């Protein structure tokens, strides 16, 4: 079995952590275990091992030292430090503050550029259209083109209704 970190040396240090009903195993070679300070299990954090040193710390400091708890699932920064995984999708909102620098260190960017569910893409398109129409409305009102403003107002009403329908699904 190879070391989880360097993936080159034979693993000689085997750690098992049980959190709730979940078991996590980490296998390290001697050099990496020393480097990660695993010789002292009390300071050992699985999140650091899996995601890179300091990631759990960033989340911890984000709360200004105070404990943040996910309102949806009750997950805390300490849980993240132990697991290296979040509790639910809502955690990404609850821990948003410390997240960005962590994401920066592990990804190409911090904003999603890929595929999105069709329904969401549609909602996004409609809400963008709404913004555009409202801008135009402001402009024609400033220009005192009230005839055009009346047309735009009706159009905005329709688009708003469509957006509400989309969001209700």
């Amino acid at each position, binding site marked *: 079995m190879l070391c989880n970190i360097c993936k080159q040396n034979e693993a000689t240090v085997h750690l098992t952590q049980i959190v709730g009903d979940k078991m996590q195993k980490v296998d390290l070679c001697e050099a990496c275990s020393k480097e990660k300070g695993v010789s002292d299990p009390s300071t050992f954090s699985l999140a650091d091992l899996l995601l890179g040193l300091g990631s759990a710390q960033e989340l911890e400091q984000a709360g200004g030292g105070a404990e943040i708890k996910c309102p949806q699932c009750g997950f805390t920064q300490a849980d993240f430090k132990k697991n290296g995984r979040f509790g639910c999708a809502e955690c990404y909102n609850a821990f948003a503050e410390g997240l960005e620098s962590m994401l920066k260190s592990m990804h190409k960017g911090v904003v999603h550029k890929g595929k*999105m569910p069709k329904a969401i893409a549609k909602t996004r398109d409609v809400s963008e259209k709404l913004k555009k129409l409202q801008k135009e409305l402001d402009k024609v009102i400033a220009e005192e083109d009230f005839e055009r403003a009346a047309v735009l107002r009706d159009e905005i009403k329709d688009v708003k209704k469509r957006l509400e329908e989309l969001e209700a699904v």
Partner: protein
Amino acid sequence: MSLDNIHQFLIPLAEASQRKGPNDKIVMSSRVRLARNVRGLAFPGWAKKPERVKALEQIQPAIESLPQMKKHYAASMDQLNTLDKQILMERHLISREHAAKNAGSGLVVNKDESLSVMINEEDHLRMQALRRGFQIKEAWEDIDKVDSQLESKLDYAFSPKLGYLTACPTNLGTGIRVSAMLHLPGLVLADQINQIIQAVSKLGLAVRGLHGEGTSADGNVFQVSNQMTLGQSETEIVERLNKVLFQIIEHEENARIKLMEDKPKVVLNQIGRAYGVLANAHSISSKETMNLLSLMHLGVDLQLFPNLERPLVDELFIMTQPGHLQSTVTDKLGADERDVLRADILRERLAKVDRPISTQLPPPADNDKAV
């Protein structure tokens, strides 16, 4: 056909090994997996067991109703015994992590094993498309279709800014892992493999062993995959890996040519010994078998075996792994007994295979004393 025996459902190895794909001398298989979660449910690692069971009950029928899953095998992980799970892992249909799961986790596989979905592994859904040879673009198209159909049946956890939300932030965004399984005996024999691994790692790609994270590269098999999932589109990630893979293939091809030019005796010696041991041993470990079969594979690629075809080598590669080996007999075998049975099968299957040729080679150079 949900509760069918998994052994009856899976494609017989002799048949599966006949499959061909582009560049399959070097690229054994291509795989794309997507991680998805359902909105409003805790991630599997944090959810309590009743929640996981409920999620499974909601997700499994949605997958089973897909047109691609017309003929499929589905099971909850507690319906499978250790041996079943081991076999599924050896066929790369489930991960090592998923093999450790029980009630509340599940699996759906289609008939030709090209699509499989793990339910409640680290994420609610881990779906993969698997293809023979170098076909990562095609595999992405396969799984993209499955995903698009599933999104109308399941409400995915998605954020316009962060993309698909996953249990581990390393998978966030696209949730995509594109990987290819490469057979690189040339680079290993030429001692260039570490350079390649380092170069590939610098590009932000991961190189792993046969069974993914934390496994060793037995049988000269390496898995190359993307690591970053956020800030790039799926197509960009696939394209990038495609380019790197082409380069690795070229390096491997060159290494093989160069080895045969510079050190033919070293190569012939390794392949001849591999044949000798595999065809005559009476006890052999799984690891040694994989490493020696890899050399036989290289021998076939170099046309050194007059009457051995690649499918037999591929078949033996899977067949001699612990799970598949155990499944051929009814009694539970210990490791020593498995080593004996493995050697028996190898001797029998290789009995009619003639020894590798050692002629048709350039006359040895004066300084060629390396044996």
